[in-house]
């Protein structure tokens, strides 16, 4: 008798993967905790994180959104102005360090820098450059709007039973003088790039782990009951500033993020890891879930990921349905996603 004799079929590649049609690969996740239709779930992260909130809402689960769209705003304009994209209007939070920065601001551990960007009389928030596509009418309007978002972000942590964070990138842009991070490189969506001030850094394993640990600490201090589900976006980088080939840079980033997420989930009882990254990226799935550009995840892939999420919940905890039935909103399309990073593709042109 050796230990492998008691390993279940899901532990062997042949029975779990090779002998199956890839759409029949199952038991990919044994969740640590149950997400019930009553659970309040907050979602943040990279572009791919948007699917999770939408899927929860489509299934009748409680997607925590303390920052409400105004009465009458259509779905189309809500997306345009970043309502109902994440739990509050933070825009994409691509890195673990950006999540930590938002938490420190929201819980009073750090002050939001005074830097604002002005273009043609309109004001742009360097930390949410895409939430107001035409810019704000004035500094005051920008600051008031950001205060609303910070309060909502704080509430989304305090109210959450489950906090889902999708890690997207390790590459970050910093203000060397102020020591703070931008979600996008200045000069891309907005702002002006200054090589003396704006500094590139590619986070390593230890830095991502440290930032996530600090972020979790703030969240647990604010809300001791909150449980965290980490995921890693399967979407490759649009562009890299690392000097490496974008495919190699992508693998490095995703490997670090995946390793940290797995490590934290293994070590911490209140942290789990959901393998959306593997579902899309594993060779077992033959790249079938990607759009022809081999970057964007096609809607069948999103559905498969979210179906897996709910199916694994049901397999572990029993029937778990909300009032809805769809795995994703029937109207949701890939191009509905709000992805600031994709703006970088325009700088590649036809090269």
């Amino acid at each position, binding site marked *: 008798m050796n230990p492998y004799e008691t390993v279940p079929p899901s532990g062997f590649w042949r029975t779990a993967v090779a002998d199956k049609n890839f759409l029949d690969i199952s038991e990919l996740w044994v969740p640590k905790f149950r997400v019930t239709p009553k659970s309040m779930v907050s979602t943040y992260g990279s572009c791919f994180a948007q699917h999770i909130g939408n899927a929860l809402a489509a299934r009748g689960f409680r997607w925590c959104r303390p920052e409400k769209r*105004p009465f009458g705003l259509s779905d189309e304009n809500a997306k345009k102005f970043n309502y109902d994209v994440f739990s509050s209007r933070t825009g994409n939070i691509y890195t673990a360090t950006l999540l930590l920065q938002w938490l420190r601001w929201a819980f009073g551990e750090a002050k939001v820098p005074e830097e604002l960007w002005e273009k043609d009389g309109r004001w742009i928030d360097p930390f949410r450059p895409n939430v107001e596509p035409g810019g704000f009418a004035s500094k005051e309007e920008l600051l008031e709007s950001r205060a609303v978002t910070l309060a909502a972000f704080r509430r989304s942590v305090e109210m959450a039973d489950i906090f889902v964070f999708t890690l997207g990138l390790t590459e970050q842009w910093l203000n060397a003088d102020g020591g703070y991070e931008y979600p996008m490189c200045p000069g891309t969506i907005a702002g002006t790039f200054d090589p003396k001030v704006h500094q590139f850094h590619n986070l390593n394993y230890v830095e991502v782990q440290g930032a996530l640990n600090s972020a979790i600490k703030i969240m647990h201090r604010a809300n001791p009951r909150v449980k965290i589900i980490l995921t890693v976006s399967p979407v490759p980088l649009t562009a890299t500033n690392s000097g490496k080939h974008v495919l190699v840079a992508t693998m490095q980033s995703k490997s670090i993020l995946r390793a940290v997420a797995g490590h934290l989930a293994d070590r911490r009882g209140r942290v789990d890891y959901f393998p959306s990254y593997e579902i899309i990226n594993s060779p077992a799935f033959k790249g079938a879930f990607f759009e022809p550009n081999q970057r964007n995840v096609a809607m069948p892939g999103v559905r498969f990921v979210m179906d897996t999420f709910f199916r694994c919940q049901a397999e572990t905890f029993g029937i778990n349905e909300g009032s809805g039935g769809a795995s994703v909103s029937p109207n949701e399309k890939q191009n509905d996603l709000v992805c600031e990073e994709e703006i970088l593709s325009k700088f590649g042109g036809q090269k």
Partner: protein
Amino acid sequence: MKVCVVGNSHCGALIEAWRQICGSWADLSLTFFATPGTKIRNVALRDGKLVGLTDDVREILKVTSGGLQECDPEQYDSFLFYGLIKSPKAEHTDVKYSAAVREAALTDRCVESNAARLIGQLRTVTDKPVSVAAAPFRVPAGTDTASAWTCSHEEETAFFQRVAFDKLSASVIAQPKETVIGQTRATFAEFSTGSKRLQVETERAPKAHPSGEVSHMNCRYGEIWLEHYLPTIRK
């Protein structure tokens, strides 16, 4: 002058009020084509007439119009689309939103409304005068207080006019000022007391709404509204 009123359950207050005051407006006749709830989605222009697309809607239109199953624009001199732009709840506010977001929300309310849809269809067959009015503001529920907005209701009405209804050659009618609480989007509670449902069956008189009704207004409100509106069509 013959006026055709197309609307939803909010027409109940106008119908009741019109019965009370029609004697004072002998030169006018009002014909109502109203449907409760969201059934107005099943009203559309077909062969130049506004018709119900389902049997139940056709039956209801017959009751509210006094026997007509369809609205033939040829038969009327003026049109009013009433209650077909949604109004916010009393606790809603626009204060914490940017100007761009506020404008987008107001525009969406108009452009995506059943009023804009039906007026757009009507405009393909007639250029007769058209007026449009949103659903009345709700009254604050219970002990709730109504929230203030960044601009007055009149300014908002002017915005509706500019962004959505100028191009349809339709005039937006604001809710009468004396019924609106300050710079809120709420109606004084006295105007919902004793409100009645839209009559949808010939034999049954309209039932009163349960106490605590916040959406629908009463006969008194209907009178004020009509006294506010009717002089505009005489002009």
